[in-house]
């Protein structure tokens, strides 16, 4: 099918990751917000991870457009 699924996956997780990262950064000193997550600023950590995952997907998708590599095993 014409649409490479990695574009929507990459875009969506980059966006959600960015949201969580920003929110996690702003609330990093707010103990009340992170009482539930054992005092860990899980939004910041997980947001960055999602962002990295999203960007990786976008990178893989764009590499294919430039004729770089095969789209997964044929």
């Amino acid at each position, binding site marked *: 099918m014409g649409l490479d699924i990695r574009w929507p996956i990459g875009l969506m997780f980059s966006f959600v990751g960015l*949201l969580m990262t920003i929110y996690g950064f702003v609330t990093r000193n707010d103990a009340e917000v992170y009482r539930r997550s054992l005092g860990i600023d899980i939004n910041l950590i997980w947001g960055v991870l999602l962002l990295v995952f999203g960007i990786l997907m976008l990178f893989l998708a764009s590499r294919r457009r430039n004729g770089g590599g095969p789209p997964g095993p044929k």
Partner: protein
Amino acid sequence: MQVTLTWLDYLILLTYTCFVVGIGFALRKYMRSSSDFLTSGRSIPTWVTGLAFISANLGALELVGMAASGAKYGILTSHFYWVGAIPAMVFLAVFMMPFYYGSRARSVPEYLKMRFDERVRALNSISFSVMTVFASGISMNALAKLLHLLLGWNYHASLWICSAVVLVYVLKGGLTSAIYTEVLQFFMIVLGFSPVVYLGLKDVGGYSALTGMLKGVAMNPAAFHLRDTATTYSSNAWTSAWQPLLAGPAHNPMGVDWFAMVFGLGFVLSFGYWCTNFLVVQRAMAARNMTAARNTPLVAAVPKMLFPALVILPGMIAVGLMTIPSKGYRIPAPILENAVYAKAMTVVAASADLPAEQAFKDVSAAVGKRMDRAKVAALVRDYAAKPLAPDAFNDRLWNAVAEYDYDGVILSLVKRYCPPGLLGLALTGLLASFMSGMAGNVTAFNTVWTYDLYQAYIAPKKSDDHYMRMGQAATLVGILASIGCAYFARMYNNAMDIIQLVFAFVNAPLFGTFVLGMFWKRTTGTGAFLGLLGGTVASGVVHALTISQGNAPGMKGGYLSVVHTFPSEMAQNFWLAIFAFTVCVGLTVGISLATRRTKSDEELTGLVYSLTPKIKDAGTAWYGRPAFIGTALLAACAVLNVLVW
């Protein structure tokens, strides 16, 4: 039980919804023929079909149910993955996919028609399409109920809005849309739930601390109201996968013997589901070529093998948490009606001067559940000192219930550990799995309806455009019928249980028919048809004659007479499947030998193992061949089993 969502959580939910609808619209321009719409034009890369294959199986009910089983049975639950899935997935890939894909059948029922005859196809396609509609209805009912309980959303609005989202993207992008959103859902669930597992594990002090706690639980499950007072297991009952099983049904929390587990679940039920259910097989059939199709279940097997850490572990963590009083955690009690609370309040008020034993009996009777003695006594005492406000009272009463709603485990952990943000991510993952569950069922339904029922029996030889429109209409009808079933499930819980039971009978013998059809060319259409019917009947009869310990004759079996008592419901299910399979195989072989073959060797080429040229994987490197990958997966699976022996 309710949680409050913040703007951030809503934003994440909205983002996901926009993306799935967007995918539907982006794919719209590629939907040119009925095969684009219903079978994706066989054009999708392996990793995508592989993840969709596993996602179609990882419905929300699985997510909820496996965490529940993790709490009830511990690590024994992983047999549903390592015994009950991986071997069947490898078998599908290596041995069966060549016939499904190579025959160019567009659906599993169509394969049955090519191999046998119209009768077998009609039987399978009718039962399958009814089943998909009910399955998606049941799951949508669960979703709407959950959104109502958890977020306070309106039941009807939740049901219709979620269904509308599914309708839009399936109608626009067909099977491809469903497959693509399943991949999105896969990542959403894995990435949304793994932090919850991580936080839970950290909270109980790591895995080895958790096994220590579960050992204590296994030796005295009654202390945590997990079993009756008389029940006790050896210390490894929750934490080893095989030793309690080999020790016998009385020594493991599932109450199952190893033979029923390996043969009933691992062979009959598992192969019956993974190798013949069009819902999952359809994903592999959408792959772009034979190797991709065969590798699809193998790609899927990798995450499947690791899922126990994501879905079963939370249940075990929940039980572990209960052993640490300072954590203040309990597995949620079943939901009580408002009338029950009101009634219990008057009883508690009147119990102040009664002896403790009498007060406990009265309150238990008013609630209609098993209660915790100490908590009831404390509640009666406190209420006599100073009447509690209704909210506080309801909370205390609910907490005093000594029964568990195990299906609430996963959400109680999400609620406990997720701050705003992560909460939105986890809930979106859950919602995504409900919606893609519906999409998966509806895309399987519209294909079977259009090609196997409509084109085959109602309107053959129409233009492709006609079938394309029929496929779209079937999508709409399928979703409306699912909504109808959701309401039906909401009103008649018992009727729903009966329907699911009947489907269990229908599914149990199916693998017998397929395995004989694919590997024995002598199998005739009449043999297959009667064998399948006979297996279903056998399953129903055995159910009517047997019962499991602790159940009264009725819905749960034994309504004709009780010939045998199984140690647990699960053992009963596994043995039912074994009977159904054996009868189906016996009848099919017997009748096939007694009837004349109607299909020649030429007609069966590509459909039966011995008459089909072996696939030469010469073009593929040795490490890319299904046989090699399959063997490696089985070895990895064996290692996992040994690790939790």
